[in-house]
């Protein structure tokens, strides 16, 4: 082999390896910058204020509690919509639908996943909110409920595609075994296939949850932007403000380095840690299941 070739090979191999590590570098960088600009908030705002009642930055009320409850209630509503619809659709696609229906449904659900969230927020303002206002007789339709319904739509594609993969991965012999001892297809789905795909379905739900918590534009546009403590179930029918929406709405107008700026980064840090926890938990479920499968098969 001539020398220039092996030298080029060396450089390229180095470059490829360096790129391989890039994901770690970026996660570390993101974490660093959130810490760097977010942690000062803890010394600038007393903890009691940070967990107080009001978010009103102009008068130095920096309680992130209303924003956290806002995110919680909107996400809860979204999951109530997305889990049954998502898993139901996944079961339908994987177990019931004939081939041609499956070939139409799968790309359609992917299409929903590809719709920009700002488009859903736009329709939330123009169609969903006015409908909810009239239908439920509310003072305004821009409520946690509107945000929940849109977020449900955003979480569904994630849940469907991952849950459907999990159902698809259940060996056909499991189903055949159940049929052979006289179970109907319906019984097989509930007592054999779904339990066998349990961990994948759980992962699907968790990743859907992660998407819902992190979603920004649709909730910012449709939830009415009122940072009030949402602790009752009826808060679902009033305007709220989520953590993501607060960052998006206010970051453009704050001075870099101000208290407000640091608190917004601190909220970003909290969101980052939540998504970290959700994703690590989701991959731990997959990992455990793999180990169990290896044990069973060996």
């Amino acid at each position, binding site marked *: 082999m001539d020398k220039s070739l092996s030298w080029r090979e060396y450089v390229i191999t180095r470059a490829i390896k360096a*790129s391989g590590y890039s994901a770690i570098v970026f996660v570390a960088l*993101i974490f660093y910058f959130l810490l760097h600009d977010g942690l000062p908030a803890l010394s600038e705002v007393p903890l009691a204020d940070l967990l107080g009642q009001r978010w009103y930055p102009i008068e130095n009320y920096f309680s992130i509690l209303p924003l956290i409850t806002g995110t919680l209630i909107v996400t809860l509503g979204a999951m109530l919509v997305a889990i049954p*619809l998502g898993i139901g659709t996944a079961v339908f696609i994987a177990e019931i639908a004939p081939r041609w229906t499956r070939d139409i*449904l799968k790309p359609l659900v992917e299409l929903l996943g590809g719709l920009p969230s700002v488009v859903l927020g736009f329709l939330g303002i123009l169609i969903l909110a006015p409908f909810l206002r009239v239908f439920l007789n509310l003072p305004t339709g821009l409520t946690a409920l509107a945000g929940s319904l849109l977020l449900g739509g955003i979480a569904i594609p994630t849940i469907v595609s991952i849950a459907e993969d999990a159902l698809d991965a259940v060996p056909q012999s499991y189903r055949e075994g159940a049929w052979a001892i006289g179970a109907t297809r319906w019984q097989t789905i509930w007592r054999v296939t779904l339990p066998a795909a349990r961990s994948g379905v759980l992962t699907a739900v968790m990743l859907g949850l992660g998407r819902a918590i992190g979603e920004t534009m649709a909730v910012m546009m449709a939830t009415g932007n009122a940072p009030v403590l949402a602790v009752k179930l009826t808060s679902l029918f009033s305007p709220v403000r989520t953590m993501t929406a607060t960052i998006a709405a206010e970051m453009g107008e704050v001075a870099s380095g101000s208290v407000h700026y640091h608190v917004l980064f601190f909220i970003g840090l909290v969101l980052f840690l939540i998504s970290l926890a959700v994703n690590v938990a989701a991959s731990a479920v997959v990992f455990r299941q793999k180990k169990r499968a290896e044990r069973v098969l060996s």
Partner: protein
Amino acid sequence: MKKNAFSNRVLTQRLGFSLLTLVALFTVIPILAVIAYIVAQGAPAISWEFLAGFPREGMRAGGILPAIVGTFYLTLGTAIFSVPLGVAAAIYLAEYARENWLTRLIRIAIINLAGIPSVVYGLFGLGLFVFFLRFGTSLLSASLTLSIMTLPVIISAAEEALRAVPQAFRTVSVSLGGTRWQTIRRIVLPQALPGIITGVILGLERAAGETAPILFTGAAFFLPRLPNSPFDATMALPYHLFVVSTQVPEMPIQIQYGTALVLIAFVLGMNLIATVIRSRARAKRQW
């Protein structure tokens, strides 16, 4: 008695299947309805002036050319940074990496990158690119931010495409005296290319439709001209839709729907191209 139990079970199954069919329809019909509605409402707004003109009268008239061009530039900028890096990372994972703790750490990092909320990417871009590196609120900062967000999508898709190439291809190339890189460059990459391109387009599609990461890193409310350097701020379709639907009072409804239509045409057009490439490559594949 026995017959009764059997017919009960069949009845349950029938009910259950009908219910799940309804659930699936309930999920899918709104998707079609939403797209059809935007097309129907937005189509009358589409004209040459709308697509190729500049906004006038506080954006209440005229066209959205700067937003279309801006989204095109942002997508291109994102591709320039994320494609080489993402494909190289995928090559590393598929062809070089051994199963050890470092590789597991890389995979965890990729999963986490994919899960970070888009607005947090916006904060990161603001901290690193806009302020620390002093790129300012610019096309460059926004593209870099979107690139990092797109990276996990591209890495995962490209790795899957590379792994799908049968091992025999590599064995033959190496047995003929090819080095590892020659094998990857001449044999594996060309075979995996359609899969990689599909993944790249799907990743860029997401970047093109995102608003939150560019809000404070590069998006401009209004620009009277097109951006002519990477250090200029830029208008963008998703941000423009946000602006015309929430920030400008007395906005003609037609312009709002027209903007939404152009945005979904842009994004779903990319989706369609990816789907076509995928199915064509599958039909042509010899392994």
